[in-house]
Structure formats: structure tokens, C-alpha cells
């Protein structure tokens, strides 16, 4: 046999055992949990189990996914009550007994099964003023930035837009302030722009008024669920809050600004 499968036959043995998944099924009108049992083997993640269930017993079970490697942020759900990426949640990290519950992100309106309406995040992003660079540093139209100066921004730009931080934030989840508060993901986005060494735009007034940064009371729940380990609160929200305070409440800064406008 010349085919590739020699080289890739699934060597090694893997024990498989049945496991029950309690999956929320429904739509905007309501729904309930359904139990499905499927075989779980070594190294499997929750997303694999969902796919198996689709193939075996529920071909119309809706879920989002793309990369299966924690890179695209599509497969967000609440697993045993915790917001996580299904593709990065290994079965052997979950308690060995009892059913595994899988439900959609609760901070967003349900569409169907595990799929939610995340359009809030796209709208909110559009309301944040776009990147506006300073004039190039070199005659060839390029800029010079030191690695040390971009480290922080690169941390924020790791965001895969899984919206798990949005899901866990009580301002959105419990208080439904979607119209007044952009949420942690978008604050990280704003921070990435504000702290970008080349950017010249000022977003502080928007952050204070339109984007509701004041709603955040630094519970740090968002940081805890971020699969990219972005220190959302300490590195982005708190510094932004400080800038807002400096800009609008600190008399000395105000005075200073009269002489030196800009950021």
C-alpha cells in the first residue's frame, strides 16, 4: 500500500469508555438539556465529543468551531458551568464521574443549541475609533519601534475574540448593559490601540462616555477565563481607567494639557 496511512495509522492503544454529555438544546424561545452518551478515548477534548454526538445521534446539533487548536476563538461554551473553549478542554481535566454539561455562553442571546448571537461584539468594535498612525519615521515610509515598546500591545493583540471574557463579565451577563458597556474584550482592543506606539488618536472621552469603562469594578473574572492568558484587568482596563481619570478628573493634568495638547 503506497498510501499515507501506513505512516499515520493510529498507533498505540487507546482505551475508550462511555460518557454522558448533558447538552443544552434550544433556541431564542427556550430550550432544555438533553443527555447523549458517547465513547471517550485518550486525549479527547469536549469538542471531539460534540462532533461524535453530531455524527452518531444528533446530526442537527449546532455548534461553532474552526481551528480545533485554540486559535480562532469559535468554540466558546460553558462546560460544567465554566466558560471555556471546547477544543482546548480535555476530557481528562474534567471530573471523572457524572455527566459533562455543555451549554451556550449565557451573556449572549441564544440562536440555536451552542450557538449564540455575538453580534454585540462586532457592533461595539465598530464604535471604537480606528488606528491612526503618526507620520512614518523613515523616508521609505516605515516606522521604528523597539521590541520592548511593543510587548504590551502584542499581549493584547493575542486576543482570539472568543468572547469568553464578555460571557463571564457580570455587567453584561447579569446586568445586560450591552448598550452602555463594551465589555472586557473591547477594552482590551481599545487598550491595544491606545498603547500602540504609533497611534495618535485619543479614545479616552469615548471610553468614559460611550463605552462605559466606569461600569467595570475590577472583579477580574474576565482575566481568569481568558484562554490567551491576557491580563485583561491589570494590564489593559486599570491603565485605561487611570488614563481616563488623569484626563478628566486630575486638575494638574488638565492644566498641563492647556500647554501641551494631544495625548
Amino acid at each position, binding site marked *: *500500500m*503506497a*498510501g*499515507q*496511512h*501506513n*505512516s*499515520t495509522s*493510529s*498507533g*498505540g492503544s*487507546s482505551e475508550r469508555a462511555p460518557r454522558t454529555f448533558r447538552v443544552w438544546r434550544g*433556541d431564542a424561545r427556550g430550550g432544555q438539556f438533553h443527555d447523549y452518551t458517547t465513547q471517550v*478515548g*485518550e*486525549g*479527547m*477534548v469536549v469538542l*471531539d465529543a460534540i462532533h461524535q454526538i*453530531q455524527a452518531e445521534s444528533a*446530526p*442537527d446539533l*449546532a455548534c461553532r*468551531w*474552526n*481551528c480545533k*487548536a*485554540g*486559535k*480562532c476563538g*469559535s468554540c466558546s461554551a460553558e462546560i460544567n458551568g465554566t466558560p471555556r473553549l471546547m477544543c*482546548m478542554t*480535555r476530557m481528562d481535566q474534567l471530573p471523572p464521574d457524572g455527566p459533562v454539561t455543555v451549554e451556550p455562553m449565557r451573556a449572549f442571546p441564544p*440562536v*440555536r*443549541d451552542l*450557538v449564540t448571537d*455575538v453580534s454585540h461584539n*462586532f457592533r461595539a*468594535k*465598530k464604535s471604537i475609533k*480606528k*488606528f491612526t498612525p503618526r507620520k*512614518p519615521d523613515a523616508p521609505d*515610509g*516605515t*516606522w*521604528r*519601534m*523597539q*521590541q520592548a515598546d*511593543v510587548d504590551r*500591545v*502584542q499581549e493584547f*493583540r*493575542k486576543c*482570539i*475574540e472568543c468572547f469568553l471574557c464578555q460571557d463571564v463579565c457580570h455587567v453584561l451577563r447579569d446586568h445586560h448593559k450591552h448598550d452602555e458597556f463594551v465589555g472586557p474584550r473591547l477594552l482590551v482592543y481599545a487598550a491595544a*490601540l491606545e498603547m*500602540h506606539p504609533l497611534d495618535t488618536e485619543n479614545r479616552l472621552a469615548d471610553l468614559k462616555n460611550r463605552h462605559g469603562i466606569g461600569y467595570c469594578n475590577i472583579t477580574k473574572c474576565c482575566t481568569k477565563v481568558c484562554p490567551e492568558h491576557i491580563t485583561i484587568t491589570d494590564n489593559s482596563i486599570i491603565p485605561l481607567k487611570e488614563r481616563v481619570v488623569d484626563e478628566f478628573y486630575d486638575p494638574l493634568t488638565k492644566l498641563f494639557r492647556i500647554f501641551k495638547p494631544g495625548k
Partner: protein
Amino acid sequence: MEHYQTLEHDVVVIGAGGAGLRAAIEASAMGCSVALVCKSLLGKAHTVMAEGGMAAAMANVDDRDSWKVHFADTMRGGQYLNNWRMAQLHAQEAPARVRELEAWGAVFDRTRDGRILQRNFGGHRYPRLAHVGDRTGLEMIRTLQDHGIHQGIDVFMEMTVVSLLKDGDRVVGALGYDRERGRFRVWKAKAVVLATGGVGKAFRITSNSWEYTGDGHALAYEAGADLLDMEFVQFHPTGMVWPPSVRGILVTEGVRGEGGVLRNKDGRRFMFDDIPDNYRNQTAKDEEEGWRYVCGDKNANRPPELLTRDHVARCINREVKAGRGSPHGGVFLDIAWIKEKIPNSEEHIRKKLPSMYHQFITLANIDITKVPMEVGPTTHYIMGGVRVDGDTQMSTVPGLFAAGEVAAGLHGANRLGGNSLSDLVVFGKRAGEHAAKFAKEHGAGAVNPAQVEDAIRRALAPFDRGDAGENAFAVQSDLQGTMQDLVGIVRTENEMLRALEEIGRLKARAAKVGVSGHREYNPGWHTSIDLHNLLTVSEAITRAAIERKESRGAQFREDYPDKSAECAKFNLVLRKGADGRMQVVREPVRPLPAELQQIIEENK
């Protein structure tokens, strides 16, 4: 009859990866109204997964680099079957496209003097890949997305295009449905850009996601466009092999660019055992020279791990078949060993390859800073695709353009790593620009309602058959097995003829697929639609691979293990014949202009 909504735009772009976004941005910057349609949410396309970097001869790290060297590298990598005009434009324009991304907010890793840093990659003579750790694709797609949302582009997320609409010869729009509700929609347009990516889901082991079902290839083919070079499917040498559920997930070539080495179970660096003649002058003589190259010594040649992907994949295949593989049927890829060479190696690895570190720790319980990974080949990329004009990206059907992975030409018989991300922006921009021009010059055509209704009827047919029909997932899985086993890394005529027969049987089964339930987010229904595309591209790959009776680039034939001078003279075109059957036609390779030929000679 089914109700559908009709929307009108100057240009409709199908696909929102790097190529589609860049095309949409360009067309809208030229004053066109633009619709951008994609199967997933915005920002989730395949481009987001690209890791290693984008190739552009900026010469920031090695000032000997230039577009000419990049051009010569691309042609050598493609075994001279490339569309040389595309290879030339790509090498010339990639640096400007990288700088443009920076101007739109991308934050690449930096050199000491504050410029964009470039890293080594297989087949590139000098360090050439602009990158952000190992998440360059994320940086690219996010930059384009965040720039694009302020351009007034109408974005249609989670919608699948199922058919291109024609008025005479010309394409005048597309028909699709929204995945959320299953409602149909017509995008009427003066020009259409395909940017739908690849076909990896035709195989069982792949680095590609569910989106990669060859939709654009099949849409173009059905609309009468030529496909080109479909036999050339890239098997990336390093995919994960264990545990089973992650098999195929990519391990970036960046690991080898940063000094990672391949070893068999005996600890031997087997890549030194087989170095192709045309690369001998550029390959390190020993391990010591290879390491010096990784450290940036300009007098050193690259280690053999950085030979082209087709070659590395075959070498791995050979080790495994000879019984010298790793426990789970791969070989070892070791980056941890650099601790012998540099202090703080663990921190260095985590910094340079953060998402690889994360991926292995989480999915395989392996700490790559301490122990080797197990890797094996995985279906990764298709060089073949829609045949386009090198300058305008227009297909052989007027008004239909293609850019990115769905288009053919730039990469010839084998793509160099990093040449895709640059491809997306160079030719995405060109496709957008020329689609806009075409729209302005040609005005609107007429959409034929009968054509729309017919396509809708076909798309909905699986519901009529309900549970009684074939299971779409089962047919898809059988197709993947067929392609994997019979048209994979190592090919023979007999096996491929069997594959063709099997594809015939699978087509018959696909025509009987049934789905139950509702139209809302119904994966069974979606798969039933994807199946037709997968079958079309699988047939195209197989027919072309049979016709090319030689081994070249990504195609390795056990029954014709050598290159043939005869086969060097043609590319293969696939098109739908008047009888509805797929035809394979030999198309002579266009001779290179003297000045380009000279560049190739100078860089031999």
C-alpha cells in the same frame, strides 16, 4: 417556490480570509459598493491559524535579499511550473503589502534597530518571514478586519454560497443561504471575487478546518472556469500525531526555523541522509553549520530540516515505513535540544513559539521546552485552483476573479512556507482592484430567476429524502478515507484508478443524501452541500495526478519516481466538458522572458 432576497453590489467577495478581506478593502477603496460573504464569523477564517509568517524580501535581517532572490526561490520551490508573472509580482509587491499592514496597525516582531524582524523558513534563501511569534495569521486577519470594518463594506457572516449566477458567459452574482436560518439570498454583482481557501477536508488527516471543502474551486468549475495544477496538494511534514483527536493539527515550520531538528527513533538526524541535488549548494554540510545558520551566520547554509515541505514530508514517511518512527507513527521534532546551545532556552522557546508551547501542553501534555514532539505529515494546502490571469486575477470566465489559496499559479508544484500569507495580500489587492475596474467598465448583468430556483431546489433536495437517504457524514468520511489512502503523499496509477471508481460510487451516494430536522444551523444539511464540492475537487486532484506521470514537487509517484523532461513542459487544466464530464487538458508552460530566466540562472 422558495422566497429569496436579492441584494445588489458592485463587487461581491466570497470569503473573508486574508485574500477576501484585502480584495474587499481594495474594491471599496476604489469607490465600489462591496458585499463580503463568509461561512464563519468575521475573523475566524483559516488565515487566523497561520503561524510562521509572511514572506517578503524586505532585507531587514540580511541585506543580500531582494525580490529577485525571492522570485528565484519561489520558482525553484515550484519546480518551474509556476505562473512566472505571478511569482514576479508577488516577490516585487510583498514588501509593500507588509508595510501596509503595519500602517494599518499590525505589530510585527522587531529587529534590534526597530524594524520588522524576519525569520528563516524552508526554501527561502535568507531570513524573510515577517512574523509575530507564531501567530502571524491572527495578526494579519485582525489587522485587515479592523481596518475593513471602517470602510463601509457590507459583511454577511455565516452564509454559504452554493452557486454562481451567470448571464451568458459572464458571472453576475452568487446565490447562498444563511446558516442561521437557512434562508436563501442572491447577491447580484458586476464582478465576483472568489477567496474561499482550500480543500483539505477531502483528506482524513489535515490541518484544515470544516470550511475547507473546495467550495470556490467547485463553484468556479461549475461556472465553466478552468482549474489548474490540481494534482499538487501540499502535505505539511509536521502535523501532530498524538493523541488521536489532534492528529493533523499543524506544528509550524517556525519550530525548525528556530532550530528544531528532526530525529528518528535511533536519534539520527535523518534529513542529512537525503539532500536533493538542486539544493545541495544551499544546505549545511553538518549539524554545526546548520546551527550557525539558525543563529544568523551569513556564511552558513541552512540545515536540511528547512528543505522544501514535499521533500521533508517524504523523508518522514520513509523513516516511518522503514520502522524507524516514533511510538505513535511519526518522528521526533526536537526544539528542547537548543538548551545545549543557549542559556534560558526554555524562556526563549516560549517567547518564540508561544502557541506551539500552549498547543502541546494543553492537547498532548508535552512540554516542548523539555522533550521532543512527535510529528507526521498532514494535508495542508493546495497549490492548484482557479486558473487566473497573473496581473488581474481574472479567471477564464469574465467577471469572475480569484485570489488566495483558491487561485492557482504562484506556487507551481510546491509552495514555500510563508508564501501564502504574502500571496493573500498581494493578489487579494490585485483581485479587488481589477474586479472594481471590471465592475465600472461593464455595469450590471441580468440574473436569471430560473437558474436561482433550480439551484435552490438542488440545495434543498436532501430534506425531501429525510432520514431515508444516505448519511452525509458517512459519505464524507468514506471520501476522506479514499483520498487519504489512495491519492496521498505517495501515489500510484492503480490506486488512483481505484480512487476514481470509488469517487464515482460516492457521487451516486451523495446524490441520495437525506437530512432531517430544520434548516437552522443544521450541520447535516451543510455537509450534504459541501459533499458535492469535495467530490468535484477530489475528482480533479485524482484525474490530474493520474495524468502527470512523474514525480515533481508535491506529487510523488511510486510508479514514476523521477522528474520527466516531457512533463516539465505542461501544466494540467481541468474543465467541465460539453457532456458534463471532467476533462484534463495539457497546457504548455509559458516560456520565461530572458530577464527572468537570467535571474534564475544567477541564483542557482
